[in-house]
């Protein structure tokens, strides 16, 4: 079963082909502010991100970092009236910010599609999963229902759902967690999107199932040449799937680079803190875990300057005046920090972090 036979023939009259060297996803200076509450909340505060075709980038961060908001902005999923979006987002050359109405719904699922953390929320409980996939296919392509169903079956086989024929007619609540997640992946990929967005798809899964899904995603990505943006709060997950990692804090990308570089030689104090705060395989048993002091930022009341400064052990006065510019600390490794020379000394040659 080759990837091509599953994906089906490319539809006639597709969007303009990607120029060589042009990134599949290009986000420039994205700012997203939520105006629904008493004070406006700056959820995303100037994000630049470029993804090449076939690349997987992980957005790593905790609650309030803006990673999910960034992801959902790519599909314009935020409520129109309560959100103010500025900046540019281009997916395979299409200007996402300019899409309206039918063009926007056409784009969702075909230009880019998303898999979510909770499949039960993304799947409609009153239709069988097979029906939902068929509907999605028919929405974007004019083929017969029978053909669409055949494709859905092929996708079910592709995502390794056992007894796929029977499972096509199952309802979401009749499937186990792992199977639902596979069904959601099949649904997301059924229309051959150029870009797959994943919003913490394995967070709610058991460990043994998580490994299966991560492996499946990696496999599919390799075979189909998918480009992926993967949002997660779990460093281990990011390491498993990503080529590059972007660490986010308070709505900005504070560090980005190849996954090896960011994990082995983190240069932003927040990344350093995140990596050292893990139990690290029992090596720290009996001791106390190193912690990042303070609490996550209040996005409605961000301080001037670097948002991490109040919790940063390396912070100096200059950090509190203006948000740091991007500094290149290695090949494709960039950090928003004024103190990168200090952080360079923290990492030993063995790759472990001195507390």
């Amino acid at each position, binding site marked *: 079963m080759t990837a091509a036979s599953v994906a089906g023939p490319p539809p006639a009259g597709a969007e303009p082909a990607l120029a060589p060297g042009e990134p599949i996803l290009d986000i420039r200076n994205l700012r997203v502010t939520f105006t629904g509450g008493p004070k406006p909340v700056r959820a995303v505060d100037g994000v630049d991100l470029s993804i090449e075709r076939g690349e997987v980038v992980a957005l790593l961060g905790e609650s309030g970092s803006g990673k999910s908001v960034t992801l959902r902005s790519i599909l314009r999923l935020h409520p129109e009236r309560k959100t103010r979006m500025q900046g540019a987002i281009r997916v395979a050359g299409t200007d996402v910010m300019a899409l309206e109405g039918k063009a926007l719904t056409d784009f969702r699922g075909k230009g880019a599609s998303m898999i979510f953390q909770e499949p039960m929320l993304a799947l409609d409980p009153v239709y069988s999963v097979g029906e939902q996939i068929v509907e999605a296919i028919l929405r974007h392509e004019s083929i017969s229902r029978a053909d669409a169903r055949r494709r859905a079956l092929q996708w079910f086989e592709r995502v390794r759902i056992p007894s796929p024929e029977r499972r096509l007619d199952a309802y979401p609540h009749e499937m186990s967690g792992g199977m639902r997640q596979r069904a959601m992946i099949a649904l997301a990929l059924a229309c051959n999107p150029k870009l797959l967005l994943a919003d913490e798809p394995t967070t709610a899964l058991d460990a043994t199932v998580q*490994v299966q899904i991560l492996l499946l995603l990696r496999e599919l990505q390799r075979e189909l040449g998918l480009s992926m943006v993967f949002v997660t709060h779990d460093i281990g997950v990011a390491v498993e799937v990503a080529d590059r990692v972007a660490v986010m804090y308070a709505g900005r990308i504070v560090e980005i680079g190849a996954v090896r570089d960011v994990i082995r030689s983190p240069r932003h104090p927040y990344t350093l803190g995140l990596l050292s705060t893990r*139990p690290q395989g029992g090596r720290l048993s009996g001791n106390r875990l190193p*912690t990042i002091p303070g609490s996550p930022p209040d996005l409605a009341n961000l301080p001037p300057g670097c948002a991490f400064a109040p919790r940063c052990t390396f912070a100096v006065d200059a950090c509190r005046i203006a948000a740091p510019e991007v500094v290149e600390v290695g090949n494709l490794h960039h950090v928003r920090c004024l103190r990168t020379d200090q952080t360079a000394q923290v990492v030993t040659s063995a790759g472990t972090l001195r507390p």
Partner: protein
Amino acid sequence: MTALLEVRGLVKQFPIKTGLFGRPKSFVSAVDGLDFDLHEGETLGLVGESGCGKSTTARLLMHLVDPTAGTIRFEGRTVGSSELPLKDFRRQVQMVFQDSYASLNPRLTVAESVAFGPLVHGVSGDEATSRANSLLARVGLDPARFAGRFTHELSGGQRQRVNIARALALQPRVLILDEAVSALDKSVEAQVLNLLLDLKEEFRLTYLFISHDLEVVRFMATRVLVMYLGRVAELGLTESLYTGSRHPYTTALLGSLLSMDPDHRAESAPISGDPPNPIDPPAGCRFHTRCTYAEAVCSARIPVLTPLGEGHSVSCHMSEPGSGHARAPGRAA
């Protein structure tokens, strides 16, 4: 070490498909024969995946649900009997729930929530309030700023601290932590774990630490109990379990840990399929349907919890002498 809690043959069945007059037609055994001890001063980690029954176990130990069968003894006295009435038991064993938001009454202030337990046990209003204040301070929440706040004004980490303070207000000996840090961000989780370690030392507590996060359990626990579909799969000292697991399920669980090393990504999933539904469990050894070493005896007989020495026990035919499995050790000497 003295055993503070002794659990023998604990079973909990929930009725499903009630018939005409509420008579249940069939049952699901959430917990199906649990035997273990909780020793004074230790942290026993309880791990397992969805459907294994660890949350039900927590509620059984707290006597929030009544067991269908089996006994729980605290310091040798049967809980709920005349030797140890339930109300007195409540002072000895307390629990911190997973959902920090839902476990606090939205209409009570933080101090009122913490003071509720002592009030119920006859402590005077003033004394209870001052106890609440001092506990809030102890868990890192300044009473001057937090005592009068309501649940929705606190962050996840702060709420969990309140829950811990509330659990400590009755001065218990044992604290059951049911996925207490699972919903927190990693940076906050570290702070709360450190707090738990400090409190354990200071107040000489014993912990039952329930979690699905094996990394955290390895850090916190001195012994670990692995549950699968309501039964004990393996039990032993943390390091011997993590470095030398003897149950195929434990090995698979540990193999599912993510490596954090970009050069050593997972190549294959140690186990396929989802954790099974407890409604219709496999016969014999519950794990045999997913086990690469399964043989005929595995579906025929339930394995016995076999001691392997140094507190390490496992429920597997491969380790049970004379079980009939090809890999079982020879007849006992």
